[in-house]
């Protein structure tokens, strides 16, 4: 628990509280805008954080992430426009509550449930990340190769569509990751003699293109401008009866989310869906779900937030991102000169524990500040889309350009946006591609190292026990994902997400 104390000491410095507050506020402000999910929000605001020192910049980034999630829930509840798949479930009952004039309690439930879940999951994170990192220090290159493979394969669970397409997107991401100088030989690959590409494609540009520009083009498919109708939010407070009803769903959602969030492959989507169906099963009146019951907001929001927190465990202990936002954080670590992996927690204790503690501070700030400020966020919702999307284009261009003053980072937004738009249109999801892109260099490095150590004998991947069990797990996931009976079940879990 020394770590937590060090973390609190770091996170509670006035300057860092202020940074966290700034992150949470910015994240909510952008995340609440319709059509901008948490991933796009983090990608758009990422360049701003590079202005600060490593600790402050990661604290701000975590704040942006929580703010964006909270903002996303607000949009899902008030407008029935979930920003990403994990808040789809929140919209089911949350929006019905809003229609019945109970938007306030729905938002308060989301915030309080998230805060409770975040608090518990932070403790889980502090307990499990260090031992896992110690374990990972014993990993050889072959084991690391296998764990990256497992992480990538598991991200298929995150894609709701075809398994083959998800695999293809992973491989395409890995290939895009090979652009730039080869880390072993220094040979520039696929750069066409353009010096600016020696450092590789910029991952912020790729994320902004895939999750920002592609989404804008998709929204512009409709010929007419749509008017968004917003309602006034009043009466935030929960009644005593509400409190009684959300108590158990919040507890169960937190437990489920904490466990599922650790899974490589973005357990938080699964967590919110599973906790919703669990509450529905346990409820005495399952038919009422979908008509605006408060349990239907409390459980998935807690599960989602708990999972978001514990998904930091593989990131901080293994350097393995399990979700596009985590992939963006890996990029942020690298830009700050920190190589994510099992060493980080020992080499940079102040940074890691400060980050963990500031997640809790960030959640607290969300409850304390954002609930009273809800009126302002609702007003953000009324910004017309015709003004919003040119502003996003401008912010994205300035942001990506300002990181390295490199025009190619701006061109990459356009390329990634078009690629993403068409591939998403053809049923291929963007998240596996981004994970592949971020993990590609790690995968190649460890593959080549492992082969040198084993003197070119590929059996090293199946004779080392850790590596073999990880690869076996990956194989099981693939088999399970293509089995027809499981496919059907998965479609049920993901139903309603695609429309």
């Amino acid at each position: 628990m020394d770590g937590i104390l060090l973390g609190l000491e770091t996170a509670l410095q006035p300057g860092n509280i202020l940074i966290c507050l700034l992150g949470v506020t910015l994240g909510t402000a952008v995340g609440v805008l319709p059509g901008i999910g948490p991933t796009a929000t983090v990608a758009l605001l990422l360049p701003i954080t590079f202005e600060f020192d490593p600790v402050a910049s990661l604290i701000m980034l975590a704040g942006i992430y929580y703010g964006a999630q909270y903002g996303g829930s607000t949009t899902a509840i008030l407008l029935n426009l979930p920003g990403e798949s994990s808040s789809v479930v929140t919209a089911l009952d949350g929006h019905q509550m809003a229609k019945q004039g109970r938007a306030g309690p729905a938002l308060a439930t989301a915030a309080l449930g998230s805060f409770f879940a975040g608090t518990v999951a932070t403790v889980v994170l502090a307990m499990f990340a260090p031992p896992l990192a110690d374990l990972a220090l014993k990993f050889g290159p072959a084991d690391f190769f296998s764990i990256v493979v497992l992480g990538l394969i598991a991200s298929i669970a995150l894609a709701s569509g075809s398994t083959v397409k998800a695999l293809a997107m992973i491989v395409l991401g890995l290939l895009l990751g090979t652009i730039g100088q080869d880390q072993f030989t220094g040979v520039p690959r696929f750069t066409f003699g353009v010096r600016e590409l020696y450092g590789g494609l910029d991952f912020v540009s790729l994320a902004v293109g895939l999750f920002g520009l592609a989404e804008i083009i998709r929204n512009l498919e409709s010929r007419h401008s749509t008017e968004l109708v917003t309602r006034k939010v009043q009466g935030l407070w929960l009644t005593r009866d509400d409190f009684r009803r959300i108590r158990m769903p919040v507890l169960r959602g937190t437990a489920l989310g904490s466990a599922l969030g650790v899974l490589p492959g973005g357990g938080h989507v699964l967590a919110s869906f599973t906790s919703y169906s669990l509450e529905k099963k346990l409820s005495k009146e399952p038919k009422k779900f979908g008509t605006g019951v408060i349990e239907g907001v409390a459980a998935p929001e807690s599960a989602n937030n708990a999972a978001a927190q514990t998904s930091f465990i593989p990131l901080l202990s293994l350097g393995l991102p399990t979700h596009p936002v985590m992939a963006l954080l890996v990029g942020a670590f690298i830009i700050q000169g920190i190589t994510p992996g099992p060493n980080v927690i020992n080499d940079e204790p102040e940074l890691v524990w400060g980050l963990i503690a500031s997640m809790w501070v960030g959640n607290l700030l969300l409850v304390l500040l954002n609930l009273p400020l809800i009126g302002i966020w609702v007003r953000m919702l009324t910004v017309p889309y015709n003004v919003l999307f040119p502003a996003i284009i401008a912010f994205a261009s300035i942001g990506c350009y300002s990181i390295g003053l490199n025009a190619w980072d701006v061109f990459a937004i356009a390329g990634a946006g078009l690629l993403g738009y068409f591939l998403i249109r053809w049923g291929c999801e963007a998240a596996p591609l981004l994970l592949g892109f971020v993990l590609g260099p790690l995968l190649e490095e460890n593959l080549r190292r492992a082969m040198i150590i084993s003197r070119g004998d590929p059996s090293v991947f199946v004779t080392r026990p850790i590596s073999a069990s990880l690869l076996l797990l990956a194989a099981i996931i693939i088999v399970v994902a293509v089995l027809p009976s499981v496919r059907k079940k998965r479609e049920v879990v993901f139903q309603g997400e695609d429309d």
Partner: protein
Amino acid sequence: MSTDTGVGNGAGHSPAPFRPDLLAGGSFIALGLAFAIGGARYDVGSALRMGSGYVPIALGGTLVVLGALVVVMAFRGGDPAIRDVERPPVPWRRAGLLVAAILFFGFTVEGLGLAPTLLVTTFLAALAAPEVKPVRAALTAAGITALCLVVFVALLQLKLPLLGDWLGG
């Protein structure tokens, strides 16, 4: 490509291939080939000492195989996840305006400076809005440019020149 809205009729004797899968699979095959062929120009090496070309060739080959599987799926009734989803026509003009706006920014921000570049970029982007008049787009552009200058130059103090060399700034 604008005809990819066609929905495969799974019931017919010889069902037409599902176009989105055909296009997706075709893109994967083309991209996989491009990386594999490009990778072959570098030192390939051996399994013991992999050269720069080894991994791109292996991954490119894998992508070709996966792309072929997607094409096969197109002839077998198509991807069930998107088969029955309605796809509106591709907004070519609007997408083109957005891409032009971003490319313009990349090409001119150094030479023209931030302020004039932003004005043009946001104007082009604003023109992509549904039912928008040029005057309205210009007003939107002016407003966003002012906002960006306040946020990025005044508040965040990014070291980007407002006027570039081309304008003697």
